[in-house]
């Protein structure tokens, strides 16, 4: 390192060769910057790989078991397997969503980011766009592979799901949408708390722990329960049969799958707007 030679400023004049082109801050460029940041971190690659592997792995496992031993009824594989796969994959997605923003706070990178984008909000929105598009594309890709795997194992036996079915389509579209919304939820909470461990604990608590707490058979809780982000959002992943079974004896509101997803989006919108307001106000 000591052999490194610093170029004299007069040799490489900073003025003689100014940056080419129209140097100026635009939203599209901020998105590009966030995309570079996103793809140049190992944590991104690992969490996205985990998302794909978990989804494809679970679907493969279920398909293989069904192909070897059958389900006794000769009925096709339940599309509910995607619900299980998506909720497992959501853990990896949550980690990525949180780290995308808290990683900048824990390392101090956020100060470089905000110095380059002093109005701040474009950086937040650009991060959200990059995260959402990436998660959507990657989970759609994982869904595609899962369907191919299913067809390989079960196609010949007539056990593959009917893709023309409205409910099946809803779930196939629902999985990427669900994972995208969960990633944004995690991102918003990360932006609010600015601390990796704290944000992770909060998101997982909100998605997993609180849900169990609301099992307590106390009526007020039962009325709120359907509107928790995880509970509401997951409805878009479930078959009508599962939804009906869940609805048995429930006292709270019964949301349709898309209403449930809408509730999750509303959580995302509120948390993200709060994060935006705080980002503008707080000292970096």
């Amino acid at each position, binding site marked *: 390192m000591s052999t490194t030679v*610093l170029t004299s400023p007069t040799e*490489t004049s900073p003025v003689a060769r100014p*940056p080419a082109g129209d140097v100026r801050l635009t939203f599209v*460029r*901020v998105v590009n910057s966030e995309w570079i940041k996103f793809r140049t*971190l190992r944590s991104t690659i690992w969490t996205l790989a985990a998302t794909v592997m978990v989804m494809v792995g679970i679907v493969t496992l279920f398909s293989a078991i069904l192909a070897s031993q059958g389900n006794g009824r000769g009925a096709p594989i339940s599309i509910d397997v995607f619900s299980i796969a998506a909720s497992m994959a959501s853990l990896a997605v949550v980690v990525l969503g949180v780290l995308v923003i808290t990683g900048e706070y824990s*390392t101090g990178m956020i100060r*470089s980011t905000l*110095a380059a984008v002093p109005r701040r909000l474009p950086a937040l929105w650009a991060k959200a766009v990059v995260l959402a598009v990436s998660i959507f594309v990657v989970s759609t890709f994982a869904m595609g592979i899962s369907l191919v795997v299913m067809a390989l194992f079960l196609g010949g036996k007539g056990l593959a799901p009917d893709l023309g079915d409205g409910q099946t389509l809803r779930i196939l579209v629902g999985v990427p949408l669900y994972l995208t919304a969960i990633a944004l939820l995690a991102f918003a909470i990360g932006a609010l708390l600015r601390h990796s461990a704290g944000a992770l604990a909060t998101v997982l608590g909100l998605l997993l722990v609180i849900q169990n707490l609301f099992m307590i058979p106390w009526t007020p809780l039962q009325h709120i329960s359907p509107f928790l982000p995880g509970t509401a959002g997951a409805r878009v992943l479930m078959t009508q049969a599962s939804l009906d079974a869940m609805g048995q004896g429930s006292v709270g509101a019964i949301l349709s799958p898309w209403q449930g997803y809408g509730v999750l989006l509303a959580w995302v919108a509120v948390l993200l707007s709060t994060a935006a307001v705080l980002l503008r106000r707080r000292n970096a």
Partner: protein
Amino acid sequence: MIEAHGLTMRYGKKTAVDDVTFTVHPGKVTGFLGPNGAGKSTTMRLIVGLDHPTRGTVTINGRGYDQHRAPLQEVGALLDAKAVHTGRSAYNHLLAIGATHGIGKTRVQEVIEMTGLGPVAKKRVGGFSLGMGQRLGIASALLGDPHTLILDEPVNGLDPEGVVWVRNLVRFYAGEGRTVFLSSHLMSEMALTADHIIVVGRGRVLADAPVADIVARAAGTTVRVCSPQASRLVELLAGKGISITSTTPQWLEVTGSTAKAIGEVAAAAQLVLHELTPVTGSLEDAYMALTQDSVEYHSTTTGMHPDHLGADLALSSTEGAAR
């Protein structure tokens, strides 16, 4: 040109920057000098909008930093060499920062070469030494080829070659008519680099003047006296707006008087003088004198009398010989 007006920043009860007003002019290197905790870094963070001032305003070429179309072309700032994601390579870091302004690979490669980061550019920043981190911070500041350069403690952790390089770089930038604002707690570094100095202590501006003026302020105000009857001389000189300190028996440093006056006093009392020397102030002395009251974190084992340097140049009369 950076213009701060009534800039005030409070964190809870602590006032980091207290009603600070100054102008940093283009075409010269302006040093921002003060002890640790004086508010230098906070002021610089306020300039680029990382912190919001409690009161007051600061503008760069007439506009708030966030009002510029190309902030990185307006101001290149090194505020904190650790403002980098440790998991990313230096090259990718610079590429991402530049991308916000449409600054591409060519310029990224240029600043990497200028700062000597070439051999480590593709390595992850987490493993960088302090000096390498500092060079990356400077590379990042230079990315937009900015009109104004703001560097917070730029020579921290740099090897001697790097220190000289930074000095040449800022001189070169200023020579091109750009604004250069440079903080340090090291007077000696400033003396070599800056044309103009703003001294801060406890969040306030203590001095804002050309380097030469600040030196002149300290020059000739101290006289070194050696006398076997030093304590007698202290008694005679005391109480006339004169500050006297003593580091060793028989030796006095008298501030607020002249060699001529002291010599006459000694002659009148028939005291023997072995030495009577006016001490030419250095920039260091001037700085110490200015910031003496404003040092936030005093070391307790200085080995010297804390008021050896005379806090306020003419007010206190200290019987140093008695110590």
